[in-house]
Each structure stands twice: as structure tokens, then as C-alpha cells.
């Protein structure tokens, strides 16, 4: 790369030589593969007879870098996880960048390289993309959109559709909740206290593949991102009409997240995760699934956190550590820090 180009200029997005250089010298350097190298307007993908899962997600996170990751890694994990929880094996990604004029080339490279690392990690191929540079002030540093395609095996077509859910089914999660949201919050400039919390940002497709390969009773999977675990559980009660009971003492929460939530007045159940999956399965296989999850590096702290119930239809209840019971509601708007 030309050393004088240490900042993104509007001409990096104009379709001309500068943009060509950016693609050749940065994006292809990290993303190169036979399909992408063709540089056609649309990628031509070898087809098979399986069903196809297709999703897209845009990433506008502030700050771009946070403990445990950055917007690049997140852009892969987010889309890969959306495919994986749908029962698909993620295969191909598109990556589109909207870059603010003046953005640091060095930071862009850091982001692009970790995006490529995470794609390798998840074993997905980046096959197409787009770059736009906008005038200063027209976007906040860098936005990324990724779209993803995955293939769905016949036997996994319904694993996320919440079919056949019934009272007695078990709810599992693959580890501690709230880490991503709190890590991002603590990385914000205006935040004056340091915390040891690290984002859980990770691609879950390998973990989910292992579960689906070894068991047959998964009835629902969802990654509890924005809105947290509470939002996913409430969607599920809405969908099934049954109630859900969560056992507070079984919920894995790190000390750092618990402490930050206490200080800021947040409920960890409302905080975003980027490397967690909630699974609903028949109770007969619960222990088996838990064993599979615990063996995976992303599931060491997996736990059975609750169950589907015929009581309080349509509502999610929390059995508190203190022996009381309360409702877990969907979050309204972003969580805001409170004063007392």
C-alpha cells in the first residue's frame, strides 16, 4: 500500500484506481479465495440440492474496538451465528464497507484482518463485497454489512422453528450472559471505570454442528444478541403460548458483569451477547446436549437454565435466588444507566 495513504479519502470509494488499489491491496490481501478472485459483480457459487439459508446484518457498533474483538470480527460472528441457529452450515459471506472519509487506514487494516481471521475460524468464504466512502460526518467512522448463505440439511430444517415445544422441555445456554454488552459499554470513551469484562463475540457454528450431529431433540435455537436473553425467551413464549420458568441461581453470570450491572442499574438478562445460543430441547436429551456443549471450547460454562411450563402462559418467570418469583419482561429501548 502507498505509505502516504494513511487515511481513507473520498476517492477510495469512487470506483477508479484508488478504489481498485484498496480492493487489491487490502481486501484481497486478506480475503483472497478462488471465487472472490474472479472479481465478478456477483459470485457464482457451486449449488447443491440442500435447502439454502440466507441472512444479512449490518454492524454500526461504537466503539469499533472493544475488549475481546472489533467490528470486523463481530461482522462475521453475527451473520455466521444467524445462519447457525437456523440449523444451517454457514458457507459464504458478502462483506460491504461504508467508510467515512478520513478514516485511518491502519485501523481499517486491523479490522479487515480480524474479519478474515474470524471467517477462517468459522470456515466461511468471503465471496463478494462492496466499498463506499462517504463524506466526513455522513457516517460514523465505519459501518459494515455482511450477508451470509448456508446450506440446511434435511434433518435440521425445523430445529429453529419452535415446533413441537411442550411443557417440560429444557432451556440451555452455552455460558455466561451479558459479557458483550458490558465490554462494549466499558470501552466507551466517556466511561470512567475500568472493568475486566471481555466480549464473548464468537462464531457458534461448530458448537451448534456438534450438538445437531449428536442429538435429535433440539426444537429451537436463537442467539440472544440485542435485547438479551429476556427478549429471546419472551419471543418464544409469544410464539408457543406456553410459559417459561428460569432459575436465577442456574444463570451463568460473571462477577464483572454482575458488578457492572449493579452499578449501572441494568438487568444482565437484557444485555447483549455475541457468542451465546439459547437452546430448547426435549428433557430426555437435556443432559446429553449439556455434555456435548461442555466439551466445546465455547461451552465450558454451559448450563440448564430453565424449562417450558404450562403455568403462566405467554409469560417468562424468574425463580429468584432468594426464593421469590418475578416476571422477565422484554426490554423497551436501549438500557440506560440510572443514578440510584
Amino acid at each position, binding site marked *: 500500500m502507498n505509505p502516504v495513504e494513511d487515511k481513507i479519502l473520498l476517492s477510495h470509494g469512487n470506483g477508479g484506481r484508488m478504489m481498485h488499489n484498496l480492493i487489491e491491496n487490502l481486501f484481497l490481501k486478506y480475503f483472497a479465495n478462488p471465487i472472490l478472485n474472479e472479481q465478478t459483480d456477483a459470485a457464482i457459487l457451486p449449488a447443491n440440492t440442500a435447502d439454502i439459508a440466507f441472512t444479512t446484518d449490518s454492524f454500526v457498533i461504537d466503539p469499533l474496538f472493544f475488549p475481546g474483538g472489533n467490528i470486523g470480527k463481530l461482522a462475521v460472528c453475527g451473520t455466521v451465528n444467524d445462519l447457525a441457529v437456523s440449523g444451517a452450515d454457514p458457507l459464504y459471506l458478502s462483506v460491504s464497507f461504508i467508510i467515512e472519509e478520513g478514516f485511518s487506514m491502519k485501523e481499517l487494516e486491523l479490522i479487515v484482518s480480524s474479519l478474515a481471521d474470524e471467517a477462517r475460524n468459522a470456515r466461511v468464504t468471503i465471496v463478494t463485497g462492496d466499498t463506499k466512502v462517504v463524506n466526513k460526518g455522513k457516517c460514523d467512522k465505519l459501518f459494515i454489512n455482511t450477508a451470509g448463505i448456508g446450506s440446511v440439511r434435511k434433518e435440521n430444517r425445523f430445529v429453529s422453528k419452535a415446533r413441537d415445544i411442550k411443557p417440560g422441555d429444557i432451556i440451555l445456554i452455552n455460558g455466561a450472559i451479558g459479557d458483550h454488552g458490558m465490554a462494549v459499554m466499558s470501552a466507551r470513551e*466517556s*466511561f*470512567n471505570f475500568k472493568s475486566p469484562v471481555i466480549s464473548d463475540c464468537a462464531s457458534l457454528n461448530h458448537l451448534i454442528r456438534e450438538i445437531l450431529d449428536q442429538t435429535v431433540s433440539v426444537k429451537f435455537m436463537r442467539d440472544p444478541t440485542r435485547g438479551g436473553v429476556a427478549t429471546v425467551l419472551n419471543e418464544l413464549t409469544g410464539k408457543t403460548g406456553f410459559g417459561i420458568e428460569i432459575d436465577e441461581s442456574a444463570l451463568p453470570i460473571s*462477577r464483572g458483569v*454482575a*458488578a457492572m450491572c*449493579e452499578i449501572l*442499574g441494568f438487568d444482565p438478562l437484557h444485555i447483549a451477547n455475541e457468542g451465546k445460543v439459547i437452546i430448547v430441547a426435549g428433557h430426555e436429551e437435556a443432559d446429553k446436549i449439556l455434555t456435548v456443549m461442555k466439551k466445546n471450547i465455547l461451552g465450558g460454562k454451559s448450563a440448564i437454565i430453565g424449562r417450558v411450563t404450562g403455568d*403462566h402462559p405467554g*409469560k417468562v*418467570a424468574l425463580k*429468584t*435466588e*432468594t*426464593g*421469590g*418469583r*418475578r*416476571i422477565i*419482561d422484554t426490554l*423497551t*429501548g436501549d438500557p*440506560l*444507566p*440510572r*443514578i*440510584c
Partner: protein
Amino acid sequence: MQYLTEFRNKDIILALSEEVKRISTKEITLMEVCGGHTMAIHRFGIHSLLPPTIRLISGPGCPVCVSSQHFLDAAIAYSKIPGVVITTYGDLIRVPGSVSSLEKENAAGRDIRIIYSPLEALEIAGKNPEKQVIFPGIGFETTAPATAATIVEAKKAKLQNFFVLSAHKVMPPVMKALVNEGVKIDGFIAPGHVSAITGTAIYNDLADVFKLGVVVTGFEPVDLMQAILMLVRQFESGLPKVEIQYQRVVQSEGNKIAQGFLSQVFELKDDRWRGLGIIPKSGLKIRNEFSFFDAEKNFNVTVPEPADPKGCICGSILRGLKTPNDCSLFAKVCTPSFPVGACMVSGEGNCAAFYKYRL
């Protein structure tokens, strides 16, 4: 001791619950004054641990709820002045004023920033000398000293562009006003963080003159259950007094340094409480020596006195006379997404707590 789990110990809570059930013979109504307590009581399911003799009612201790709509309309009006930055606690962002909210004004392009401490507002003022930075101060004796200390700092730093719009209030006058109004209360669960600043003498009248028990309490379930036990004991023995349950934080004389800041910067004024009207000497206004930092004295902003929203019974709820279920708007027209009254919009509001946690 790491303070995250010990005060949520199930065995201790259940033992306290058993003891309360054992000794409680007479019907008793206890008011938890503080919004933080209301939230904790719902969040930890305390109601389900009490015998039917005990009734808990929620008081007027949620700073957002009791801040008048007029104050909010004013904060919104200030945000519209060119060059003004509003720096605010997150609590105020979504509270509806008469026609708008700070959140909506932010979307409309006003410069509104969420801060965690008023000292951040000073920093913003220092870095942006061309802007006028206004901090709408809300809260009781708990948050007011931080505002006061910030004003003192601003004076030291000779800042020309930092201002406070004070809606700070003090706790005891409203508690006495409720008792004087005839609201049935047999004892108060008093906010621990207020007494961490003020000490406990502020409640002596309530015990000596009004013969009501007051127990200063923390915010964990063990704290609350123990405070309830202490109040029931007092009530059953007929010996009301002021006691501190929250001994790991509160000392009877309070925090002298914080008290010093409060009296240096603020003086008492008659103040308007949402739903409760004007209560004598219940609010804090900035003393003349610091008027340079008083937003009201440095900007020419007047907003009309708004009418309370139709059908909303926040006033009765803040008095502990009614519960959210008595309100025809509750959970139908008035929800956390579309709050009508302040008790719903604040995370500490009684209606929000009911909506959020009641099974």
C-alpha cells in the same frame, strides 16, 4: 466479603421471612419511600415472602417520577437554544414532557449527552468553551452533593459555560406531608443512600412526634427483609424509633463532607412535586453566591405550566393511596413503550416496577 451474593443468601432471607411471619400479629402498612427499594422489592419477589398482615406501599422517592413536568419541559426548552449541550443522567432521557422528550430532541438534532457523573459535564464544558453546557440536576440528598461539589469545582476552574438546572429535592418534608395528609402509614422503610449523606437525625420527628418507626435500609433482599422485621418488631412492641439496618454504609451522623457541600451551594425552597403539589422547604435551589452557575438565572427560558395527563393517577400512586392496577390507563394505554405518567417511564417508577415484575 464481596457484597454481590451475601445479601442475597436464600437461607438467611427465608429465616427472616419465617421470623416476620412468626411475630407479626397486627395488620401493618409500611411505606418504602425510595424508588430503588420499590424496584428491589419487585425484582426479588419480596411480597411473596411476607405474611398477609403486612402491606407494602410505594412512596414518592423516585426522583424522575416526582420531578414536575414543568421541569422537563424547561430542560427540553433549554436544549433548543443554539449552542447549548444538555448533559444528563440516563434516567431523564425518555421521560415525556408535555409534547416531547430529550430523546426525541436528540433525534431532532439537539446536542444531548448521557453522563454518569456531573463531573463529566464539567469536562465537556472545559473542552467546548464555545458551547453552553447545562446539567439538569435531579435526585435527593443522594445525588445533590455530587452536583454541589461540581458547582464548587466549576467556580474553582472559573468556568464560564457550565450551568445547573436544579430540581434536587430533600426527603423528610414529603414524608411528613404524606402523614399530615392522613395517608395510612405505620412505618417507613427509609432510603439508605439518603442517610449515608444526611445521617438519621432527619427522621427523629417522625418517631418522636408522629410515633412512626423508621428503619434506614439497604437495597438487597436481606436488607429489606431485615428492615421489615425490625419495623414489625417496633410496631408489635409499640415502641417506634429510628434505627439503622444498613450499618455497613450508614452512620448516624452521615457524611459531613457531603453535607458541607450541600449547605455551601444549596438552600431550601418550596418546591413542586409531580402529583403532590407544592411542599414547603422540600427543594434545593442554588444559593446567590453561585448564581453564576444557575441555568434559571442565566438563560431566559419560560415554559407554560402543563396540565397533568388525563386519567393518570400518578399523584395517588405516589401517595401510596392507589396501586397501578387501580389506574384505567395502566398496561392498556400506559406502557413502558408509551408511558403516559412518570411512574411508568422511570425505571424506578411504581407502575414500571408493577408492569415489569408482577407475575
